[in-house]
């Protein structure tokens, strides 16, 4: 995959491997085990778009987010920012990238320093961004306004705010760095249903008014469907389906996407909800999803399916889809 002119950032076969630390005996015997948290993700992050990243815990979505933000280096593949590989960025270029890509975390209790006032939390971010002391107060108030927080909260501590307000502060802190890409890792999953919409709507507004590119990580398909321009479904460290949310979520091509959809609570239509079998054991050879898949056949146990186009803006990694579609659409455009 080449650098896309419309891409804010391009991921090329990005991998992250963690070595499981076992006991001394195992290590001496050479019995070490590697876990591929992210196992070859290629994808352009489109400038000015909202990309939804969906999957279960352990699918690698948070690890991918941390690599995008530069909190952890990739163990393989390349992340391209402004046409340059992240690993080639040093000094001023690295700092510029680090302020250009910001993150909003799920847990506002642990991501905001409980012993610092809101004024200080935002002031430190501005200082790091090189805003002179004289201009900070004014900028802090502007940031608070931007995220819908009354400036009377300036002197408060994070615990004096509600969960939704704390998440707004987290967003304001990210905005202080004037980023062009914002990665929001489950920004609403610890909030009440009644307040989730407020934060999601705020992200939408920022996307529209600032042209901010957003990667929204969520396990809530309904939220993703609502606000994203593109949705990527991850399983076992890979993207198994990607496309525009209307297509992916109404006519999924991967059985895992279908399973995710089936698991969404349906309230009074109780019996409609299907349950995916429990994942057990180590990663199998072939398709990672095979043991939980109702349609798995021999090929699935041998070969790992490639992510191939299903239609113009829709690709899936499933053997069931591929023999027919491969001739029809030669290039992956997602």
């Amino acid at each position, binding site marked *: 995959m080449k650098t896309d002119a419309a891409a804010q950032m391009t991921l090329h076969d990005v991998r992250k491997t963690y070595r499981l630390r076992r006991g001394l005996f195992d290590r001496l015997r050479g019995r070490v085990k590697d876990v591929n948290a992210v196992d070859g993700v290629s994808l352009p992050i489109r400038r000015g778009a909202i990309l939804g990243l969906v999957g*279960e815990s352990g699918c690698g979505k948070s690890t991918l987010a941390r690599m995008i933000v530069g909190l952890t280096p990739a163990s393989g593949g390349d992340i391209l920012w402004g046409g340059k590989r992240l690993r080639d960025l040093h000094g001023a270029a690295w700092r510029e990238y680090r302020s250009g890509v910001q993150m909003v975390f799920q847990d506002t209790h642990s991501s905001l320093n409980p012993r610092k006032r809101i004024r200080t939390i935002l002031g430190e971010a501005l200082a790091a961004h090189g805003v002179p002391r004289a201009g900070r107060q004014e900028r802090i108030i502007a940031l608070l306004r931007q995220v819908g927080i009354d400036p009377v909260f300036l002197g408060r501590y994070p615990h004096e705010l509600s969960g939704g307000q704390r998440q707004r502060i987290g967003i304001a802190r990210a905005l202080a760095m004037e980023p062009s890409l914002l990665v929001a890792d489950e920004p609403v999953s610890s909030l009440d*249903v*009644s307040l*989730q*919409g*407020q934060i999601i709507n705020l992200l939408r507004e920022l996307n529209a008014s600032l042209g901010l590119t957003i990667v929204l990580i969520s396990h809530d398909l*309904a939220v993703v469907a609502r606000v994203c321009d593109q949705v990527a479904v991850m399983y076992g460290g890979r993207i198994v389906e990607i496309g525009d949310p209307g297509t992916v979520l109404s006519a999924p091509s991967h059985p895992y996407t279908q*399973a995710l959809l089936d*698991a969404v609570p349906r309230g009074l239509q109780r019996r409609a909800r299907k349950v995916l079998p429990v994942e057990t054991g180590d990663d199998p050879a072939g398709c990672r999803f095979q043991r939980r898949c109702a349609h798995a056949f021999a090929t699935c146990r041998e070969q790992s399916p490639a992510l191939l186009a299903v239609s113009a803006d829709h690709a899936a990694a499933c053997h069931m889809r591929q023999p027919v579609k491969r001739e029809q659409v030669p290039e992956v455009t997602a």
Partner: protein
Amino acid sequence: MTGGTTVATTVPLLHIEGLHVGFRNGDAVRHVVRGVDLRLEAGEVVGLVGESGSGKSITALSVMRLLPPGASITSGRISFRGQDMLDLGHAELNRLRGGAIGMIFQDPLTALNPAIPVGRQLTDAIRAHQPLGPRAARDRAKELLALVGIPFPQERLRAYPHELSGGMRQRVMIALAVSSNPSLLIADEPTTALDVTVQAQVMDLIDRIRREFNIAVLFISHNLELVAEIADRVTVMYAGRAVESGDVHALFASPAHPYTRQLIRCIPRLDGTSGAMATIPGLPPIIGALPPGCPFAPRCEAAEPQCSQDEPPMRWRGKHMAACYLAPS
């Protein structure tokens, strides 16, 4: 009343009447629960829905008398199988906790002891309530792990909580909660920390187990849609009070309280709509600084001047109860 059967039909399994719970702050008492009535029959599932700070968890904790430091029940009655819970001594309470009343919490990682294998935690719980020897308790523990769908139960007995996934830990919690054949299970946001797929599995498990053993469930969640999946009746709480209560179908079909109506609208749905999400404007009121009149009035889409004067009482509105002046009668 002469026969046991008569008693069973007239006395509810759990009956909460006029419950008030307050936090003492110097001389002032801030009430987080302000007069909640709740009734659960044997084998019934009742959902308790509300935002954080609505008092739903405190109501549930009151039943077990497990209130956080500083909080106390200032008035009201709680009876379980006709027995006054507020009269019980420590020994009697401990017999009920984890005995006839099981409880599962949102975060199994903090509810389970991180330093003890799950098998040992199960056998301890079993032997605290049942006269079983170590071997029999271990067999029972294995049986329970299998019952809640944990693969390789024999091996998992030796696992520490951190070695299990979130879904598996919640299954262990459920195994613990049902280990002593409870007649009531209190589930406080049991699936909130879980992925949707795992959430579906755990909801299925709770539903299967309560049917199999005829356990009544008090199911607490901020997600009305989730509650609707399992509950027979629902009570919606706001600012420490029940604002609407009734049969789950009636409540969804014709919510009488604007809060319930707005809450239902907020649930993100996969119905193809895109654009801004519905929200309830503003924030829940701060306990101790409630606005005059109906506490929901400042956020209510239908509020009228009278709403800011007196707090509306719960009244029957057709098939269910609501605390709103504007609810159709």
